[in-house]
Every structure is written in structure tokens, then in C-alpha cells.
């Protein structure tokens, strides 16, 4: 027996043991690792609620009741998923390619403002569907434009994109506010806001419900991004750059070009999210409005390990938590940002679960 076989064999044995172990307990362990942390997070959240003097059972049941089991609540939950899913798609493209585009808020808001400023004016000239397409296009283009500077700086100067995208985000949010207050002001109202897109000119609703078809756009974007990243050569190139830029250079890829492409797609999706939110839900932008979706979606896509389908599940959960949480805030008095607290606890419990799982596997191997 050669040295190598001697080395390889124990490795194979342990691997065999691992597969047997996982085939027997696989589904159970996956369940424990994915559901366990959720339950743990809800329990910790319940303890916090108790400490704050609220009844956790009534809070949770109220949230679930309002966000999922009441028709209007479920419709609101699903409608909110549209823009959130587009943001998730934007982040998945970037993170899988190893690029931290954290400037989604600026890209989103600027796109929203430009869409809101344009479509009420063009609706008289264009048919509704063309007007909506124009709105979506404007959103994507404006978002992408706001990503150009960080993209160039990253691609050719190697400047850290976390800092540049965050800075561009602050600038974008401020610029959007300035535009709403000065340039795109609706002369017909006294409150500073853009012209409003009438309800009949907005994105169509799904099957006689109040759910916006923005949900479909979001679902389509996330699934498309997921398939592109996992099944195509373009996605493979992006993943290679993300996993090991030096290997990408070694393999002959043009890392700067791919970097710019990633920024363009990611920022365009963030801009599209703004367009969908305006065209589907809000119809206008009020001054100082900034939902800041991006930074709340970042933990969600990480919880889903940058998996598109997992992201849909987490976005649904988060959407329900916020919609239910907003109702609960009015009714029970628990602050509406408590849903963010749950997400934060969930991040911690999931991290812990992964750590424990890894340690368990190592012990089994030994």
C-alpha cells in the first residue's frame, strides 16, 4: 500500500460514516438546524416581550393573525414582498460575486423618485402598460447609474466598495429628498411630495385581490438570479471572482469587467425595486421618505445563505413580521421595530446552530 492510500483510506472511511450518518438523520438534522434557531429566536423574543411587560403569546398570535390569516393582512404581506425580493435579488448577485453593494438604499430611493416624477406626466401620452414598462426601465437605469462610480473605483482602483457604496447611498438619499422638495414637487399639494400616479394606472392587482403584481416581478427576479448564478457560465464566472479573485485572474477572466457587470445588475435590481414600490403601492414619493429596505434585507439573504428560494421564505417571514408588527404596534403597543429585533436574534441563533452543528460533525469524524 502506498503512503497515499494509507492517507486516503481513513478519509474515505470517515466520509462513508458521514454519509451513513447523514442518510439516517439527514432530514432530521437539517430540520433541527433550520427550524431550531427560529424557535429559539421566538422564545428569546418572548422573554424580551415578557421583560417589557407584554404577553408574548398574544403578541405572536396577533402578528400571525393579522399578517397571514386575515385576507387584507396577507395581501399587504405579499405586496410588500415585491420590492423586498428585488432587493434580495440585487444583494444575492453582488454577494455571490464577492462584492458588497451596500448602496441599495440610495439606488432604490433615487430610482423611486425619478419614476414617481416621470410616470404621472407620461401616463397621458402612453398606454398604461407602456407607461408601466417605462417606469420599470427608468428605475433600473437610474439605479444602475448610481452604481457606476463605486463600480469604476472598485474595478480599476481597487477601492473598497463597502465604503463607496455606503457613501453614495447617503448622497443618493439626500439628493432624492432635494429633488422631491425642489424639482419634482407636485404643485397641486401643499405637502412636499411628487405628483401621484392614479390607482388605475398602477401595476395591476392579482386576481381580484389587493396584492400587487410587483410580487410576481420580485419572485421572477429572485428565481432568475438564482438560476443565473447556479446554472449558467456567466454566473459561474461571477462566483469564481467572488470565491477567489486571484484564481479568476489565473483562469483568464477579466475581473474589472465582471465587477462592473455585477454592479450594473445589482444596482439596476435595487432601482427596479424602487420602481415597483412606486408603481405598485405608493404612487408617489413624499419628502424625507426612506424605507431603508436594503440594510434590513442584508441579514435575510445571509440567513438564506444567498440561496434564492431560501430568500423567498425569509422575505415572506420578515414581510409578515413587519406587517403584523405594525398592526401590533397600533393595537398592543409593542414598538413596530420589534420585528427587527426578532431578525437580529434569529441571526444570532442561526450562527450558534451552525457552530454547534459543525462541532458536532467534527466530533463524529473523530
Amino acid at each position, binding site marked *: 500500500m*502506498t*503512503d*497515499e*492510500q494509507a*492517507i*486516503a483510506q481513513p*478519509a*474515505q472511511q470517515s*466520509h462513508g460514516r458521514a454519509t451513513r450518518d447523514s442518510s439516517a438523520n439527514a432530514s432530521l438534522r437539517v430540520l433541527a438546524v433550520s427550524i431550531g434557531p427560529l424557535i429559539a429566536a421566538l422564545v428569546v423574543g418572548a422573554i424580551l416581550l415578557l421583560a417589557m411587560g407584554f404577553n408574548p403569546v398574544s403578541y405572536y398570535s396577533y402578528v400571525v393573525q393579522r399578517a397571514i390569516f386575515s385576507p387584507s393582512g396577507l395581501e399587504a404581506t405579499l405586496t410588500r414582498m415585491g420590492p423586498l425580493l428585488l432587493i434580495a435579488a440585487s444583494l444575492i448577485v453582488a454577494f455571490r460575486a464577492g462584492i458588497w453593494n451596500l448602496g441599495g438604499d440610495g439606488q432604490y430611493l433615487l430610482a423611486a423618485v425619478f419614476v414617481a416624477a416621470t410616470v404621472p406626466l407620461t401616463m397621458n401620452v402612453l398606454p398604461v402598460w407602456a407607461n408601466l414598462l417605462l417606469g420599470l426601465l427608468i428605475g433600473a437605469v437610474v439605479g444602475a447609474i448610481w452604481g457606476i462610480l463605486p463600480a469604476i473605483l472598485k474595478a480599476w482602483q481597487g477601492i473598497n466598495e463597502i465604503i463607496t457604496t455606503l457613501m453614495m447611498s447617503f448622497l443618493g438619499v439626500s439628493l432624492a429628498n432635494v429633488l422631491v422638495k425642489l424639482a419634482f414637487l407636485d404643485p397641486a399639494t401643499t405637502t412636499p411630495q411628487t405628483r401621484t400616479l392614479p390607482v388605475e394606472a398602477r401595476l395591476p392587482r392579482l386576481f381580484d385581490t389587493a396584492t400587487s403584481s410587483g410580487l410576481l416581478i420580485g419572485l421572477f427576479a429572485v428565481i432568475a438570479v438564482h438560476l443565473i448564478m447556479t*446554472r*449558467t*457560465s*456567466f454566473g*459561474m*464566472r461571477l462566483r*469564481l471572482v467572488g*470565491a*477567489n479573485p*486571484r*484564481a479568476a*485572474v*489565473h*483562469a*483568464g*477572466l*477579466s475581473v474589472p469587467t465582471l465587477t462592473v457587470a455585477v454592479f450594473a445588475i445589482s444596482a439596476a435590481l435595487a432601482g427596479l425595486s424602487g420602481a415597483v414600490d412606486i408603481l405598485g403601492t405608493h404612487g408617489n414619493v413624499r419628502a424625507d421618505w426612506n424605507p431603508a429596505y436594503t440594510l434590513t434585507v442584508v441579514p435575510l439573504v445571509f440567513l438564506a445563505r444567498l440561496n434564492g428560494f431560501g430568500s423567498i421564505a425569509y422575505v415572506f417571514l420578515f414581510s409578515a413580521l413587519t406587517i403584523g408588527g405594525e398592526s401590533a404596534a397600533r393595537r398592543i403597543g409593542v414598538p413596530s421595530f420589534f420585528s427587527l429585533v426578532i431578525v437580529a436574534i434569529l441571526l444570532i441563533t442561526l450562527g450558534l446552530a451552525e457552530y454547534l452543528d459543525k462541532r458536532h460533525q467534527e466530533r463524529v469524524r473523530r
Partner: protein
Amino acid sequence: MQAPIQAPAASVPAPSGAPVVALRGVTKRFPGVTASDNVTVEIRSGEVHVLLGENGAGKSTLVAMLAGLQQPDEGHIEIDGAPVAVTSPKQALAMGIGTVFQHSMLVPSLTVVDNFALGGVWWKRPDRAGIAGRIEETAKRLGLRVDPYALVSGLALGERQQVEILRALMRGSRCLILDEATAMLTPHEAVGLGELMRRLVAQGIAVIFITHKLNEAIAYGDRISVLRLGRNVGEIGPETLRSATDAENTERIIALMFGTSRAGEGSRGEHRTRVVGDSVLQVENLCSEAGRVPVRDVTFSVRSGEIFGIAGIDGNGQKELAEVLAGQAQSSAGSIRLMGREIGGTSVGDRRKSGLRYVTDDRLGEGTVGIFAVATNFLLKDIGAAPYWQRGIEHPEEIRRQADRHVQDFDIRTPGIQTPVGKLSGGNIQKVLLARELTGAAQAVIFAKPTYGLDVNNIRATRKRIGGAADAGKAVVLISTDLDELLELADRIAVIDRGSIRGIVENGEGARDAIGRLMSAGDDR
């Protein structure tokens, strides 16, 4: 022990004292590599003991064990003749072993004094004036000038190193390890460090000086231990070092570093039977400033079926040359022609398409992506190519078929083709690279240190592949720091030194001596 007789008075600086620190039969293994193999070294006070060896010879592992960062698997460390276990850097310091690492361990935004105060207890205000006084006193004793209140970021690299040496001494080090201490210094600073080492040993300190540079070893060392592939292959004592000329010492060290004439002579006959064809790869006056070592005016040509070896001590522009040839680094002048076509200005991908392959020595750093599946790593350089992708869409069936074929043809030991490549042993990762680079329409293949860090069986398998590539009519460039390997495989051998080719030797009788002469000639300058 004869040491006490040799050094009767400890207070008087003796040229050769008792072993302060000793490694006895120390072995350290990492997955796939034996980094230290039964190493025995004695470090005496009042001596500069050079540990000389190439990258991967096991120098850093010895330092890590002495500094308490790692523990030996076998053997032990002795201090003043008593076996000890050095389990932490703190303990190493307490035992009098101070280490100055290659990269500065000082906080650049703090002053020298504050850096010295960092080790103190947290509840006491540091006695800055006291420390500053002691710094100045120690510095003066060693003939150094250090401003205790200077910001570290404002100091030159040589000065920072002096500060680190001072810090190690003030913490009571009797044995000072300088790890690749001259690597970051200007030539002038390096000379200064050499003088400082002399003054340190004059005060009875034992200095361990780690380097891969021959000339420095001879210039500053009292005793030289040569490490090769984890083993201590020979020691040259102070008497021998002093009595011989530098040239003789150089020759002796090169003989130790690259092995003396022995095995491999028999196998050399085989490749002579190969049919050497037309010139495939022609490199003329190639220059590049892109890397750490500039490539200067390199000219050679390789014919089909020929193995062209490039010998040299590691870090003399081999990597830079390979990267310029492969297109990963820009050339500043000269031409590279493949099959008569100029490829000097083309991209990495175009060069690969026209038949140039590059087997990198940095297998995990750039050759593969550790978290990607074996099957994926086979295709890293062909993303989007048919039949694995059709119109940009992946065809898993084709990818799987190719991976199965490679695993079988190249005898890759892996649990499966979906196993992340980073989980394989070094030898199997190398086989993945070879499978990727040697299949398809390759015309010329560049191998960079292809057997570096592999075990004996994988070395043999890899060398067979290299010979096989040449047998198949490919032009092979073999960059290696292992002279035996080059003598076994290559038809002609060039010697590279500081980025330029010193000369090209036909492999055959007397080639080893001719190469040795070219190498040492380079070191004399």
C-alpha cells in the same frame, strides 16, 4: 557534555558557548507535508546560527515551534540542557526565546514606548519615562539610536526591526530569532543588521538568523545549518567557515542545498530517446517590472518534445517569469512567440486557447478554488466552453462525464467529483491541476515548482506526467528549485538569478557542476 569546559566563564562573552536552546529530533507534520523531519539543531550563546534553506524547507516551522506557536509531533526542545514544552509565545518569552518576525509586530499608530508598554498589566498606568530610559540605555549598549517617543509609523523598516530586537532583549531574551530579517530591508539596512548581530553575540546572546540568501548566511553566520525538505542536511561549524574562502563555503552550501551527485543518474538516459522537433516557444529579450523581482532580458526557446529547465534559488524571478509568460503579468519589453505567432500582448485566455498552459505552484491560492467541487475546478479555465455549457447554460451531464474521466486517467483520490477540492491532499490537488492543464490542445506547458510540497509517490507521479507531456511532443518549461529534478528531466537547464538568465547548460556529464558554478557566480556580486 563538553560545553562547560569550552565556556568556563558565562559572564565573559565566549565565541562558542553551551547550547542555550536545542531542538532534538523534532518532527512536525501537516496534512500531506512533513514540514520538519527529525531535525536536531543546537543553538549556542555567542553565536549567530544561520538556518539556511529555501521556501518550504521547514524554516518557518522550526521558528514557530521555538516561538511556542506550534508544538512538535515528535522530539522535543531543550533549554539549558533540560527538555521543555513551549506551549505559548508568552512561555517562549519567559524562557528567554525572543522572536522578531519577518513582518513587523509593532502597532504603527503608537509610539515606541507605548508599544513596549503594551505587555504590561491593565490596571497600572505605564511608567513611560522609566521604559524610555531603559530603551535608551539598552540601545546605547548595542550602539543603536532609538527615539523612544517616535511614532512607529514614522520609522523606516530597518528601525522598526531594531525596535523589535530591543523589545525582545528588554524582555530578557537570551536567544533571539530573526526570521527572514533582511527580506524587507534595503541593502544598506541589511548590512547594519549584520553588524548589530555581531554586537549581540559579543554580549553573549544566541542569535538564530533565518534566511534563504546564501551570501548573507556566509557574511553574518558563525555556524550554518542547511535545511532541505524539512531535514537538517548538514551543518558547517565556525572553524570550517572561517578557514575556507567565501567561494569554497558557497560551493559547500550549494552542495548541501541541492544534494550531491547520487540517484537519478540512471533514469536520465530515457528522455534522450525523445524526438525533439521544431521550436514551439520563443522568448526574446523579455522584460517585466510587474512583480516583486523584475524580469530582465530573458531569452530562450523551447522545441517540441523538449524539456527546458529553469534552475535557481527560490525568489529570483521564477514566479514573475512564469506569470509574464502566462499573461498574468504585463511585460515591459521583448517578445513571446508560440508556434511562430506573437502572443506577448494577448490575454491569459487567448494564450490558453492558442495552446499555452501554466501549471501554477500556488495550487490553492490561485490554481484552484478550495470550496468548489473537483468537477468545477477541472473547468475553471474553460467556463462557457462547449460541450460543458451550451449557449451559456450548464450541462451537468457533460461536466460529470469529463470529471469522471479525469479522476480515472489521473488517478485522483477523491471521495467524489462533488467533493470540495480543498479537502483533498496536496498531491491530489496537483493531479487536478495537471488534468486541467495537460488535456486538450496544449502546445507548450509551463510547470512552476510542480513537485513542491508533495510526498515521494506524488513527486514520482508528477515527474512522470512532465516527461509524458514532452513525449507527446509538447514544449515544456520546467521551473524548479530542486536541481535533482531538473537533472532527471530536463534537456537543457538555464540558471536564473535576480530575474535574469545567468546561462544555459546542456544536461549531461558535468551539468551539475556547471549549474553550481553559475549559481555561485551570481551570489558573488
